[in-house]
């Protein structure tokens, strides 16, 4: 266990230079792009040059990029994400949206794993049966449809039939509803976006699980177990599954990273009040603090996801435990 602990510390220390590099690259790319955050102001006839200058000073644009970066990095290390270009606290803005995005993504991930993993196993066990073939065709389609296109189709469907709301998360009279009313209202609004994300990520997961399982089922020890006369149930669920699940844990790490950023496109189409819309607007307006905060958040989530996956692997697989 001590070794494991050391390993974790080492991994965390390794991420620090990585994060610094990510932040430098992102910062410079944003600032060196020709997007001038003040262009709109400059083209407004009723705004005086003095105001433009004052704004430029307020946003720190009058200083060299390296100074701007230093300032940002210093306050970031102190835990201060700064303010948006309109003067709101970045942390507050993110905090408004994160729960909504998490609600959507965790729901989707839970659903896909609960459905996708069993489906993958069944498909592998019933390899080359009609059931497996039909499933393969369906998942191919699921993988082939671009999420935004599927989302737009569903939205049009909602308009035509009137069965579903046109995006959003709550109805205008949400605040006056009872607890169960609120619950149902949110569920009603979530159906379509969850359905889109679910069908698309289900396909990938199911195939991954199926492939892993097939690999394992083909290995010698499974053949041996079968030869030994173990029941098929024991062979599949006790011996094969435990080995087939390892790559899935790595995948889970990536899923963790996509918790905050994975649904941006779908969020945008469904006008879902999550991070996606906020960050898209921030990028378009070159709202540096907000963009940087979201990029760093994404990077940290990815690194953390990988770390968590590695730790889980250590816990589940004795072979890796020995090496670490």
């Amino acid at each position: 266990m001590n070794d494991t602990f050391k390993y974790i510390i080492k991994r965390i220390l390794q991420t620090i230079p990585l994060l610094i590099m990510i932040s430098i690259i992102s910062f410079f790319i944003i600032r060196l792009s020709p997007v001038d955050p003040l262009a709109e102001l400059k083209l407004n006839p009723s705004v005086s040059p003095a105001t433009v200058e004052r704004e430029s000073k307020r946003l720190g644009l009058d200083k060299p990029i390296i100074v701007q970066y230093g300032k940002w990095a210093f306050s970031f290390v102190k835990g201060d994400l700064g303010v948006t270009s309109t003067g709101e606290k970045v942390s507050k803005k993110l905090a408004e949206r994160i729960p909504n995005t998490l609600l959507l993504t965790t729901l989707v991930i839970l659903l896909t794993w609960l459905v996708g993993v069993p489906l993958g196993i069944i498909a592998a066990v019933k390899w080359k049966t009609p059931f497996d073939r039909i499933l393969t065709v369906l998942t191919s389609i699921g993988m082939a449809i671009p999420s935004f296109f599927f989302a737009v189709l569903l939205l049009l469907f909602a308009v035509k039939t009137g069965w579903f709301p046109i995006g959003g998360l709550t109805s205008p009279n949400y605040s006056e509803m009872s607890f169960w009313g609120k619950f149902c209202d949110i569920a009603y609004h979530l159906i379509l976006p969850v359905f889109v994300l679910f069908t698309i990520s289900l396909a990938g997961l199911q195939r991954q699980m199926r492939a892993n399982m097939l690999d394992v089922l083909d290995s010698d020890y499974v053949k041996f177990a079968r030869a030994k006369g173990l029941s098929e149930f024991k062979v599949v669920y006790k011996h094969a599954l435990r080995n087939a699940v390892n790559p899935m844990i790595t995948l889970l790490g990536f899923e963790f990273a996509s918790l905050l950023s994975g649904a941006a496109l779908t969020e945008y189409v469904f006008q879902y009040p999550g991070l996606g819309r906020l960050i898209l607007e921030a990028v378009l307006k070159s709202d540096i603090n907000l963009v940087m905060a979201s990029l760093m958040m994404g990077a940290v989530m990815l690194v953390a996801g990988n770390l968590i996956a590695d730790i889980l692997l250590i816990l589940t697989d004795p072979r890796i435990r020995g090496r670490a």
Partner: protein
Amino acid sequence: MLLLCTILCKACLVKDTPAPDNDLKFQTKEQFTQAYIPPKNVTIDGIDYLQSQSPVGKFGGEFVSSTIGEGPKTFNPFNSKDATSATLSGIMYDGLLGTDPISGQPVPKLAKGYKISSDGKTYTIYLRKGIKWSDGKPITADDVVFTWKDIIFGGLGDTSLRDSLYIDDKLPSVKKIDNFTIEFTTPKPYAPFIRSLTQSIAPKHYFEKAVKSGNTAFDTFLSTTTKPENIVSSGAFKLKEYVPAQRVVYERNPNYYEINTNDEKLPYMNKLIYLIVGDLNNEVLKFEAKELDVITLQGSKVARYKTLEPHSDFKLYNLGPTTSTMYLSFNLNNRKNDKGKYYVNPIKQKWFSDINFRTAVDYAVDRKNIVFNIANGIGSPLYTPESLNSIYLNKNLAQYDKDLEKSKELLKKSGFYIKDKKLYDKNGNRVEFDLLTNAGNTEREAIGVMIKQDLEELGMKVNFKPIEFNSLVNKLVSTFDWDMVIMGLTGSPLEPNGAKNVWLSDGRLHMFNMRTPKEGKKGILPWEKELDYLFNQGALATKFEDRKPYYDKYQEIIYTQKPMIYLYSPVIINAIRKKYKNIYPSSLNGLTHNIEEIYIDE
């Protein structure tokens, strides 16, 4: 899955829209037959109410509108730097004066009346007696003086209003005469001042603390995280709820000062809801799914809605041309930069400074075709810098059609000649230049292609280059290295002085002949000098009738000198559910300017 997709596709296929008929001309007359009667002042039990003169309606219900984008950044009307924040905070805070939806003249709001002294420098404002803020405290002269002296002239929040009021580097002064009378004095007669009195008034007891803590504290005051129940406001509706990225909900302000002819307090509706919608397409979907009650239609959608209208629950209104103007501009700059290099190639300078060349370009542009093809016929050709709904529009300037013969004649007069369908100037230089616009604006990109074709008929070679918006702005206002550009500006239909930065020879947006601050008024052209004079005089005169001739003349100069060739204005078409009554569309104030008078009758 495949099956599901097919079903979805099938369900979504729009039954082909009938071919747009030519009946798109709206019956403007029919719409405006029921003329709007503006509210009147009445005094009941010592309280000066505003009394609506429109038909009495029913109380209750709600109205759902929308705002495109990411929603408000603040609810502070003195710190709103974007249009959405300004609209949404403006709902909560009334100004001393408003704008008449038809004539555009100032009308009483929080003030019951005003008087301008005969020398045009002193404005006496008479406040309504006995009216209250949403928390029940009285609205008095102290609030007005506080708003103007401490917030606006104090330079807090958005300073553009203050900046526009500097007259010879001096600001107007404001003085409390008694509890309900305030006096403003401008250093010189300055006509645009009366318009600025439409600025919201802040409750002193609510804003005072933030104002005293200085600029940074003020910037965060009334931010979007403020608890709605704490906000003290004066508008017909007060904030009830703000849900980030979803909606802003207002409820009726029981202390509002407007009543109907039965002496019942307005507004009629209980709630006013603005949905925060990410883009235009989603707005259309929401309107069609009946989640929205009103929508502004894009030109391409109008034909479809027009055919849907007879068997639907909405009605279309034509609000007339917008305040935005699309233009084609030449770079008349003939100066050198600090490195001694010309901003514009001297060969091209000669063409652009030639009035015959500019006129030839103007006559080659087919405005009607642009309106027809780009705005789907929902627009009007434009020939002057004032927008078509401007009260200062010079109506004497005649419209004209494309006339290639005239263009060719003018070019010939200046020594240009055509060889092998190519145009050369008298020194034998091929006429070739760049035409810029901002990439991503499909409307301007399409106009660019059409103008390029029009000008190629004259033998000119036009390199049409849409470039990124910010780089374009940079070229226009700082590096000046461009030949021709297609851009748009939004003006005020009420106050031409707002565009002085564009027309004054040292203005910050005098794009067609921009001078650096160091250059001052260097190389000023005779007609630029005249524009300077007209804009200075126009601002000093106080009466509309006295000002009009100055602004008529300025439009005439642009019309004849053509530094900027105006192309067209889109027309605004709104659709609103039929159940809403007391709708009096105004091209100046929009469809729901009288939101407190609108009621629901199913």
